[in-house]
């Protein structure tokens, strides 16, 4: 089953952080990315929810340790809602 989550998420990060060269890995955290502050954090959450048509809870967001966990969370939510 092909899945565009990584690519879509990378595009969202690139657009929100205004950095077309940005690459993400499983272990990437906010500390590793310049410009990822509390404001862009909110914009990322909003963009992810809008693009993947899912809702993340405050608890889920708080528990995320790195981008890899975010991807897993998105995939889990998508399969629940049946969204592509």
């Amino acid at each position: 089953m092909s899945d565009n989550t990584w690519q879509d998420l990378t595009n969202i990060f690139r657009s929100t952080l205004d950095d077309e060269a940005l690459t993400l890995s499983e272990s990437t955290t906010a500390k590793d990315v310049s410009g990822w502050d509390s404001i862009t954090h909110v914009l990322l959450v909003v963009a992810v929810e809008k693009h993947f048509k899912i809702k993340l809870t405050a608890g889920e967001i708080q528990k995320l340790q790195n981008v890899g966990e975010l991807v897993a969370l998105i995939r889990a939510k998508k399969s629940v809602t049946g969204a592509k």
Partner: protein
Amino acid sequence: MEPLELELDVAALVKLAKRPGDEKGPCIRAAVLADTSTQLLTTMLRGYARHLGCNLELFEAEFDQIEFNVFDPESPLHQFNPEAVIIYLSAERIAHNYGSLSAPERGSTCENLVRRVAGLYEVLSSRGYQTIFFNLVSPAHGVFGNFGNKVAWSLENQIRRFNVELSRLAVEKSDFNVYDLAALQAAIGSATLFDPKLYYMSKFAIAPAALPRVARGLAKMLTARKGSFIKCLILDLDNTLWGGVIGDDGMDRIQIGELGLGRAFSAFQSWLKLMKDRGIVLAVCSKNEEANAREPFLKHPEMVLRLEDIAVFVANWNDKASNIRFIKSIIDIDFGAMAFLDDNPVERQLVRESFPGMIVPELPEDPSEYVTFLAGLDLFETGSYTAQDAQRTVEYQAEVKRSNDREKFVDLADFLRSLKMRGAVKPFSPFNIPRVAQLTQRSNQFNLRTARYTEKQIAEIAASESHVAMAIELRDKYGDNGLISVIILEKQAETLFLDTWLMSCRVLGRGVEQFVLNTIVKKASELGINTICGEYISTAKNGMVKDHYQKLGFQPAGANRWTLSVADYREYPVHIALEAVTENSSWQAASRDATTEPAPAA
């Protein structure tokens, strides 16, 4: 300006906010103080101001430092010295603490908040800042359900009463303004406006998706005092003001009122009438036989708009672009201050391409949605409203008559003489201060220095010993043009400096400039001052007056300055008689007293 769709995109606004400013655009200094997180709001506000072509210098207070910034005279806010201060007290903060309050404390929430707002306002107003207070949204606690309306200390009751008090202050105080967040909540709903997890996580009381709309409303409130707002609506007729095509369907089959889709069109006409009463001028631009187009306005019993509501009525078979140029020749305002409403996407695109500055909304297909769609575009902010605004349509109708009659005169001098123009030069007084202030805020083209003033500032100038102020009114045989020019002179050492010279473009080419200069020189002479000094400050919109002083015989005095010697001045001959009016007399009384005949032309 980009198409309207761009306006509501978070990412686009964030990018725009980073762009450098435009030197020739108007500059606004504003401050934002709040008890929630405002970083994203201020970014959106910067982005939106950039989108409108304005340079916004924004001071953002530290989180929750409202009282400190306002009451401490040395605070960063006062050092920044803004023109406008935006204060956002959030309903969420109040709701958050509500449970911990005692019953009497809950019951005095509204009263305490009003006192808090009044206290902040007094200080800000005393320093000459305009204030913009957000009103409160309803957090829908639902503790009592609908019964909450019967409980004085319910959160909903306290919040609603507060909003009413805020409106009362806004009506009473000319420098007190309300940003209606409650209206936005009503329009888009709580679910869109508020995301609880973002509030608890990051103190965002407004969801990012809704912020562009807030930014737009605020930006338009700020720029409305800088001359940029809608002044004219150009209307198509068939399927825009009524259902059907008048030429084919005839009077009895077009849909207005109870026939077919008529109710939607009647509602639209009713809304347009409110716009006209507000001072926004309506013009008709339709491809029709003129007689057919006029008939419903004259005879259809269910039409809400009548001919007298339309300032300029154009119906013929010419292309709309030419007709719009004609309309602009009568209503001489920027294309950016005109909106074109037409149900036909092809016509809309043609107009958009012919006049890139003009506002051409993509009307929804269903006429039922016209009003809500247009109302939701935030097109109609203004910095002022005076009783004279309602007269504007009548004044333009007179202008159409003048314009048509001009065709009959071969010689301009003959035409001007035939107008029997009378000019009155009045000091600033409570009768004209609102209108004078409004004109300084609206006038962009014939404006030498584009100094914008609030009513308060105009009142101060009126009372000032070191200023001479003139409000010039013009009347002719067709009607009263009202206030058409404002002059503010400042006594500086041995000269009289022209702080403000602005004129309505409607009276170009009639000798008003010469009439005004004759008056200024006479005043200077009375004061024993020999030199009058003028300055031209170039903006994106006032290119038409760059040679104004040169044309009037001033001498260049370096760096956009010009001087005139009173001793060497020869009065210009004009076809405008000077009325002998005192400050409080009406035009009727004046016309009985008038004795001056127009001076002969050179």
